[in-house]
């Protein structure tokens, strides 16, 4: 891992390196294509495979549904469907595209993180790793990230004619519409959802002694 880190520092000095169970590099979207090309072709990396591409929406990062810090003042509050906190503890941009790369030659793995700006556009990696084709379609479908020069950026997992980006954190778990077959009009119709979101176990963030300064290290 150290050798890989040195290579990275040498070849892409602009990127930020994060150590964890696996090395990650954080790059800006302007550098995506040049760094991806370098990672694929340079003999120190030879990242010949893009295993996965996904998006993380950091809108609610660090927010909990059950405030335990002020619990003694107000008594235990009931679980709420919407997060109670107002500002997330995340300092970066809202959307981050995460790619998992693998080198079959050097037997190394690398995580590539692209921080997106508000335009939510990033260059497509299809010409470098063809496997990213469907992953990018998925990212577009679920999060609304647009990939420039993608050959066929259509929705992939959601229903025909679906509206919205369901995996964003501000999209409710129960959705907005439900579908049923209407016997009177003899067709399928969409209606606003009749169910309410119910939180079984609220999300709790504890800052005990157990979890302070326990960022994972390898």
């Amino acid at each position, binding site marked *: 891992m150290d050798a890989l880190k040195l290579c990275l520092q040498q070849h892409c000095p602009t990127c930020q390196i994060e150590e964890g*169970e696996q090395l990650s590099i954080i790059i800006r979207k302007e550098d995506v294509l040049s760094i991806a090309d370098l990672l694929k072709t340079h003999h120190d990396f030879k990242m010949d495979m893009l295993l996965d591409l996904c998006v993380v929406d950091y809108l609610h990062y660090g927010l909990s549904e059950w405030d335990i810090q002020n619990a003694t003042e107000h008594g235990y509050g009931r679980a709420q469907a919407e997060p109670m906190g107002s500002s997330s503890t995340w300092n970066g941009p809202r959307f981050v595209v995460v790619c998992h790369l693998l080198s079959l030659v050097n037997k190394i793995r690398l995580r590539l993180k692209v921080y997106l700006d508000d335009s939510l556009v990033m260059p497509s990696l299809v010409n470098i790793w063809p496997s990213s084709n469907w992953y990018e379609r998925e990212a577009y479908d679920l999060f609304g990230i647009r990939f420039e020069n993608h050959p066929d950026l259509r929705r992939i997992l*959601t229903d025909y004619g679906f509206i919205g980006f369901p995996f964003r954190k501000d999209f409710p778990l129960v959705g907005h519409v439900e579908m049923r077959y209407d016997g009177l009009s003899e067709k399928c119709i969409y209606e606003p959802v009749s169910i309410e979101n119910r939180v079984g176990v609220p999300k709790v963030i504890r800052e005990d002694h157990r979890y302070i300064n326990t960022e994972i290290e390898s």
Partner: protein
Amino acid sequence: MSHDSHYTINFGPQHPAAHGVLRLILEMKGETVIDIVPHIGLLHRATEKLAESKPYIQSIGYMDRLCYVSMMCNEHAYVMAIEKMLGLEVPIRAEYIRVMFSEITRILNHLIWLAAHGLDLGAMSIFLYCFREREDLLDMYEAVSGARMHATYFRPGGVKQDLPLSMPQYKKSSWKTDAQLAKLNAARSGSLLDFIEDFTTRFPSCVDQYETLLTDNRVWKQRTVGIGVIDADRAKALGFTGHMLRSTGVAWDLRKVQPYSVYDQLDFDVPLGKNGDCYDRYLQRIHEMRQSNRIIQQCISWLRENPGPVLADDVKVVPPTRVDMKDDMEALIHHFKLYSEGLILPKGEVYSSVEHPKGEFGIYMVSDGANKPYRMKVRAAGWPHLSAIKELCQGHMLADVVTILSSMDIVLGEIDR
């Protein structure tokens, strides 16, 4: 090219050879495939979003339902992700049990694949033979977890319980003679390990049976040799893993190259293909079943000699025993906290992957220090394979689409998530 002679066919979503709810729109010229547009997502259940709304332990059951023919392998990747985040050490006995059941799952998966592949190509009898052995494997699942398919057996820190010392037996009924009953119960008189051992001794001859039916069968070879060929470079570029990659001759099996659990302690071979066609992928799976059988045998002999705990000793992750809860206040509190709030992972992110029967199955998890994952992404093994269907099928006949689709071993439960 003039499009006058082209026509389109709608294949699926309700088609027995579509392996689930897959819809393909085929553009044909005569009987030759010109273009394929796959429509997926008909089984999309937003598993990842559901997992983000639930405590960690409640999502193990969702893993079973991703690729619903290799249940415990999915669980393995998921619990390994949690353990990596916590830095939790799993008892060695639990690791052996996990490996044994992962390999049982691999045989389970390959059997149902072989059955369905045979059926797709018009070989009916292989289906019945495969399901005969599958029955015993599902009995093993049932004995150890209570469920025949959706086991939820692997838990963070180990496995739910140790292997049972007795097997359930068939009861006397008016439908079975005493002789039939005795035959059915013959292997079930001892422990689960005895039952599995009995299976492993007879399984190689069962695989021989399948091979007699298919391997040198002229029709089988005509339908599979040289169909859906892909070369190694293209397979890598398209993100293929597992059989799809190994059939092209690339030696890449995570159990060997990046060993997890106790795979580095076990002796087994990884069969490789040469031509990258459907026939090679068939041969590989057949050989892999034999290798899995070897791994199971080694696990059985290890497990017989090495008793021990099957869950880690960590009160914040593993529930206390019922006995402890009777007279230990702290155990009761831990139990209450664990089942009301769940376990809490430190901030961070992790990617854990296993060699799933279909390829590399990975879980990417981001935690913000809560009792639920902040983001979870499932890297489905079949996803990149299916995305290349157009490339593999172009220029082939309509009937070959079914062969190629089936030789990829896709399960839509995993692809659509």
